[in-house]
């Protein structure tokens, strides 16, 4: 059997060896509580400070604007519920957000907030105009994701934030950066984005660790209470091994965002070419390099169920996704694809291929298995 070809890096990534070593070292040597008063703890604290600093540098923000947490879902909840702080305010949010934002906004709606839902264009991107038309002086928070986790569509969050603030300078602008962090260049310091959150396990770090940037002065309260950790924002002893693993991944991959992006573009193009050589396959979203992440490719081969194709590829040790992993256990079609106006039958055929950092793939093997699988499954259409 061939080696595993892992093409589900939007769901999670394999921790890099540097992250694994750092976690092992943390468990072995740096297991002291960073809040304690002895020298060993101070040493752990210093390690965390260094990691905070390197993340801040990558995003061009201040070190004290970065808070560690458990990952993407917590970051999204922190941004929304921390900014709302129990009050019934107005939220503007896109309908193609990750469940962590989408479900949080449904909950906020139940709690009495007014939620204005912004639909994507047919290319799955959120237009600046659609957001600015919705902004009023009552708008409290806007949440628009950086990179969509199913189609890879990149939203121009810097431009959207700027345009929204022109109408209402007090509005808080949040962006879920889980699929953008360390994948696309972003100068948060120069932008008007107030909150941006990320996750370690999408960048070859460990699960259970992540972080959130909150611009100094942005009114965000804790969402759970306890000790004064993370400058009073997030109570609970820090996940030191997770943070150290994330730190190692950031050190490893932060310097190469641009070169890696360019390399990954070529890889994606190779996959697009081979997929297009099979008749009747469409790319969901688009393929232009500016507006789509090179790390994500969503395709629908007509007449084939995505889930069945996934398992057929799995049989050949090629691992892909259908919808996003967080929602793929529910029956039905992807919310993101249906919001884009893609017909159900096409959406049910969709598979998502997503690439890791500095990986090489046996494209010929993929092309062969993909083509054979699609052609075989097309023999068995439902009549």
């Amino acid at each position, binding site marked *: 059997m061939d080696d595993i070809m892992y093409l589900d890096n939007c769901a999670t990534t394999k921790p890099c060896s540097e992250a694994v070593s750092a976690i092992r070292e943390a468990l072995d040597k740096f297991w002291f509580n960073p809040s304690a008063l002895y020298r060993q703890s101070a040493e752990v604290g210093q390690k965390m400070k260094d990691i905070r600093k390197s993340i801040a540098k990558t995003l061009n923000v201040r070190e004290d604007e970065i808070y560690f947490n458990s990952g993407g879902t917590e970051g999204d909840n922190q941004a929304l519920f921390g900014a709302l702080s129990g009050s019934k305010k107005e939220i503007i949010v896109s309908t193609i957000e990750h469940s962590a934002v989408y479900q949080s906004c449904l909950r906020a709606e139940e709690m009495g907030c007014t939620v204005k839902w912004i639909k994507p264009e047919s290319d799955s991107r959120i237009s600046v105009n659609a957001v600015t038309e919705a902004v009023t002086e009552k708008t409290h928070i806007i949440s628009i994701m950086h990179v969509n986790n199913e189609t890879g569509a990149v939203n121009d969050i810097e431009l959207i934030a700027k345009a929204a603030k022109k109408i209402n300078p007090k509005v808080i602008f949040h962006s879920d950066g889980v699929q953008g962090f360390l994948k696309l260049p972003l100068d948060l310091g120069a932008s008007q984005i107030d909150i941006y959150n990320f996750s370690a396990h999408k960048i070859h770090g460990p699960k259970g660790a992540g972080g959130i940037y909150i611009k100094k002065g942005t009114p965000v309260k804790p969402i759970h209470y306890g000790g004064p950790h993370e400058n009073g924002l997030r109570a609970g002893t820090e996940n030191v091994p997770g943070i150290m693993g994330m730190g190692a991944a950031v050190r490893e991959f932060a310097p190469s965002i641009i070169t890696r992006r360019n390399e990954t573009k070529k890889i994606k193009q190779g996959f697009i070419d081979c997929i297009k050589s099979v008749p009747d396959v469409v790319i969901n979203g688009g393929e232009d390099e500016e507006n789509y992440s090179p790390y994500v490719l969503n395709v629908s081969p007509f007449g084939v*169920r995505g889930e069945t194709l996934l*398992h057929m590829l799995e049989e050949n040790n090629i691992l892909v996704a259908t919808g996003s992993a967080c929602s793929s*256990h529910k029956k039905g079609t992807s919310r993101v694809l249906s919001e884009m106006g893609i017909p159900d039958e096409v959406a049910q055929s969709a598979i998502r291929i997503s690439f890791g950092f500095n990986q090489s793939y046996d494209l010929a093997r993929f092309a062969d298995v993909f083509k054979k699988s699609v052609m075989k499954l097309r023999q*068995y*259409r*439902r009549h």
Partner: protein
Amino acid sequence: MEQLIMVKYGEIHLKGLNRPFFERMLINNIKKSLPNVKIEKGEGRYYIHTEGNLNKAVARLKKIFGIHAFCVAYCLDNDLEQISEFCLALIKGREYEGKSFKIAATRSNKKFPMKSTEIAAAIGGYILQNTDGLRVDLTNPDITITVEVREKAYVYTENIKGAGGMPVGSGGNALLLLSGGIDSPVAGWMMAKRGVKLYAVHFYSFPYTSEHSKQKVVMLTEILSQYSGEVELFVVPFTEIQEAIYTKCPHQYTTIIMRRFMMKIAEAIARDNGCGALITGESLGQVASQTLDSIIVTDNAVNLPVFRPLIGFDKNDIVDIARNIDTFETSILPYEDCCTVFTPRHPATHPNLDKIVQAESALDGDEYIKKAIAATERLVIRPD
């Protein structure tokens, strides 16, 4: 003072000369389910000494078929004073003011010098003398204390309902066709309740269904095994047969032909493993393959008897049982249990046997069946 479990067995009483056979089977099943307890046999009762694991034993006994009821009893010497004192302490241990009570006494130990009514009156009187605000009500009491004077005296306040039915194994062996949906686990449970030892077969269509759906079937089998004891689960690779049926047979007949293949494979596995019947979760008219005409065609594929305990049940009734036996939540996990690709949009609801047999002959059925059976995976699933 020792607390033990007193088991009352049900229908076994009716079994005349065969009674020892059923009793042996029940006691073996209890021993398998509770390997670390001591079981003593009394007249019409088993006494289970659990040595501390009382709650676990109670939970397990509730799932053993053949047990009508049981209770957690205190075991005392046959000494009226001691028994009265103990019953008083039981009353005082709960909120009793303003409530009514009853002492229900039985005496199978005829050496004991008082009749059961006298025992009840004496203990009741003693309790009344030593409490305030408590009254006797023999028809609808708030608190009932039962005193059974046997080899020893057994005192308890609560009768726990058992699973009923007959001891598993006393009704022979049968093979359950287990799909992963709501109905088939319920059908299996119902037959196990009538004493059938279960074997199970699942048809697996990777890549049209996933590893998750297979795990789901394993989970369901594990839940069933809590009632029926160890279950052998046969996982039959079915993809090739489905693809062949799709390719070679008229589409409106694919479902019914597929069902016939499943039955034939199940029958072969059943015979190899000493099973005398097949069990399915079919309910008349629920889907196209469960109409009377379809069932006639399916039945014709095999010679073994096919038990369909749900045949007259509404879906709601089946769901109620599934919830009670804890299979429902697992059954509704969304992994596809049967591939919809191969389900025709308009399946025949009134198939004609001759036409189906004719359509089926386009395939070398025996060869496919032989191949599938040879590649069948056998799993032994034991309760936790």
